[in-house]
C-alpha cells in the first residue's frame, strides 16, 4: 500500500474545538488514481493536508510508502515533501516573480541540484506539458490552463511517489478542466505515480478510477469507477 490511514483523528482547537476528522481509515495502493469527494467542511482539505504532511494529526497512524509519518521535525517533513510528494493547487501557487522554468526548477533547487542540471530537467518537463515556448514567461502572462500545467510540471520534476491535487480544476473553465484531467490521467499512467485528487465536482471525480466520499469527517462510500460513469450531474455533463 502506498498510503494507509488508521483511525486518524484531527481536532482544531479554537474558541470552539472543531473535530474535523473523526477516525479516518483509508488505503490507497500504488499507482491508483483516486478522488476524494465531499462538500465543503467535510474535512477533505484537512485530510489532504495531513496526506501531504503539511499538517499533523492528533491520534491514529499514517503510513506513507511503508513509513510511519508521525511527529516529524520540520526538516524531515520538508524532505518528505520534496522527495515523495508533489502538490497541485487550485490557485496554481506559482511564484509570480519567477518565470515558468524557474518555478519548475524550484523543488530541485531545494534539493541542492546544480543550476544547469535543474534547468535541463525543468525544460524537459515543460516540454512534456507542451510549454517549451512559454518557459521564459511569467505566470501572469499565461492562461489558467498553462499555469496549471506549469504547476503539474513542478509537481512531477522531483519524481514523487504520490501527487496530491487540491481542486486542480477549481479555477479553470470546463474545456481547460477536461484538458488538465486528461493530463493528470496520462501522468498517472505514464509516470506510474499515485494520484489523489480532492474535489467537490462530480465530473472531476468521474474521471478518476476510484471515488472516496467523505462526509462530516468520516469516510463514507468508496466507489470503484473503472467505467467512468459514476453519477455525473445531468446528461453528458463532464465537469460543470
Amino acid at each position, binding site marked *: 500500500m502506498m498510503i494507509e490511514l488508521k483511525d486518524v483523528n484531527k481536532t482544531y482547537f479554537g474558541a470552539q474545538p472543531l473535530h474535523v476528522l473523526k477516525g479516518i481509515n483509508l488505503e490507497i495502493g500504488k499507482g491508483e488514481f483516486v478522488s476524494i469527494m465531499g462538500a465543503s467542511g467535510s474535512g477533505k482539505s484537512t485530510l489532504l493536508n495531513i496526506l501531504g504532511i*503539511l499538517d499533523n494529526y492528533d491520534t491514529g497512524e499514517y503510513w506513507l510508502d511503508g513509513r510511519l509519518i508521525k511527529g516529524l521535525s520540520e526538516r524531515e517533513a*520538508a524532505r518528505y515533501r520534496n522527495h515523495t510528494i508533489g*502538490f497541485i493547487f487550485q490557485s496554481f*501557487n506559482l511564484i509570480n516573480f519567477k518565470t515558468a522554468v524557474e518555478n519548475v526548477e524550484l523543488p530541485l533547487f531545494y534539493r541542492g541540484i546544480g*543550476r544547469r542540471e535543474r534547468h535541463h530537467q525543468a525544460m524537459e518537463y515543460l516540454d512534456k506539458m507542451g510549454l517549451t515556448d512559454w518557459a521564459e514567461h511569467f505566470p501572469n502572462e499565461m492562461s489558467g490552463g498553462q499555469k496549471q500545467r506549469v504547476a503539474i510540471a513542478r509537481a512531477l520534476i522531483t519524481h514523487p511517489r504520490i501527487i496530491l491535487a487540491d481542486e486542480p480544476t477549481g479555477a479553470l473553465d470546463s474545456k481547460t478542466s477536461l484538458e488538465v484531467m486528461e493530463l493528470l490521467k496520462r501522468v498517472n499512467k505514464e509516470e506510474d505515480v499515485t494520484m489523489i485528487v480532492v474535489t467537490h465536482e462530480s465530473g472531476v471525480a468521474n474521471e478518476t478510477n476510484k471515488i472516496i466520499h467523505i462526509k462530516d469527517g468520516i469516510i463514507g462510500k468508496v466507489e470503484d469507477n473503472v467505467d467512468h460513469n459514476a453519477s455525473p450531474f445531468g446528461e453528458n455533463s463532464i465537469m460543470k
Partner: protein
Amino acid sequence: MKFDIDAFREISQTLRRNKSRTFLTGFGVFWGMFMLLVLLGGSKAVKSMVSKDMGNFATNCVIVMNGITTKPYGGFKSGRQIMFRTADMDELRKIQGVELATTSMSQWGVQAVYGTNKYNGVNFQGVTSDYSRIQFQHMKYGRFINDMDNAEGRKVATIGWRVYETLFPGGGDPCGKFISINGIYYEIIGVVAQTSSNFNINGGSDRGVFCPMSVMARLYNRGDRIWGLMVLVKPEYRSSEVMNQCVNMMKQKYLVAPNDKRAIVGLNIESMFTFVRNLFKGLDLLFLLVGIGTLLAGAIGVSNIMMVTVKERTTEIGIRRAIGATPKTIISQVIAESITLTMVSGMFGIIFSVMILGMVELGFTKDGVMTAQFQVTFWQALLALLGLITLGVLAGLAPASRAMQIKPVDAMREE
C-alpha cells in the same frame, strides 16, 4: 544555504521586486554609514588641527602672572603694580614640585635687517635656555640660546622661520652672519624650524628673534624686572597644587594680601589641556553616538521593511515550504536578503564618505601640505563593514523568525 550564484540570484530577484522600497530602505543604511564616517573624519580633523596648535607646548606647566593689587596689605595701598624679578626664577625652584621656572622679556614690533633685506614686526625676546623646555624649539640650523650666552652676555640671536625666509631668501645656513635689530648687531647662532603651533606665550617663534635675557636686560635698560613666570612642574606633582604654592610664595614675597585675586594670578596650562582633551573625548563620543544612532535607525528600517516583506510573502514562503524548503533555508534566505541590503547600501555609504572626506582634505591642502587629516583609516572602514554585517544579521533575525512560523498550509489559506 551556502552563498553561491543561486542564492545570490534568489536574493537579487526578491530585492528587485520592489525597487523603490529596496532603494529607500537601503538609503537609510547608506545615510547612517555616511554620517558615521564623516563625523569620525570630522572629529579627527578638528583634533589634528587643535593638537597641532598645542603640539609644541609643555603640558605640565603653570603660569604665574603679575598684575595690580586690589587690596591694601602690609602697609601698602591698593592699586600697586607688582613686577617680578629675574631672581624669582631661582626662588621658585625651592618649591619641591617645581622643575624650573623661566620667562621671556620681549620687545614688540622691532625691525630686523640683513644687508638690504628687512623684516618688520619681529617679536624680539630675551630668554634663558630653559625657555625651550616649555616652548619646544625644533632647530633647523644651529642651536638655541644657552646658559653660557646668558652668563657672558653674548650678543647672539636665534631667529624664527619667517624672519629667516625674509632675510635669507636664498636659503642656506645663516649661522655666523650678523643681523641688526634696532641698530645693534647680533650674530646668528641658530634658526628655529617652521612650527604650526598656535599655542604659545609672548608670540610664536616663527616671527621671533631670540637673544640672551641678560643681553636684552642690559641693552634696553630692563633691569631685572620681568612680566610673568612660566613654571614647569615635575611629572610626579599635581600642577594645581604647585601653582598654588608658587602663587602664595610670590604673594608673600611682594606683600600681596592672600585673598587678593588680581595682583598675582596662577594659570594652570595642564588643566586647560586636560579640558580640551576631555572636550575631544566628549566630542568623539557624541559623534560616535550620533553616527551609530543614525546607522541603527537605518538597520531598524531594514528590519521593519523585511518584516512587511515577509508578511506580504506569506503565500510565497508557504509554497516554498510545501515544495521542500526547510525552515533553515527560509531563515537563511531572509537573513541573506537583509545582509545584502545593508552591505550594499553600507558599502556605498563608505565609498561615498571616503570620497567626500578625500575632497574636503584636498580643500584643506595648501601647497601640497595637508593642514588637517580628515580621511578615516582603513581599519575604521573595515570595522564599520564588520559592524554592518552584524547589523544586517540582527536586522534579519526578527523577520526571519516570523518567516519561519509560516506553515505551508498558510499558502493555501491566503489566496
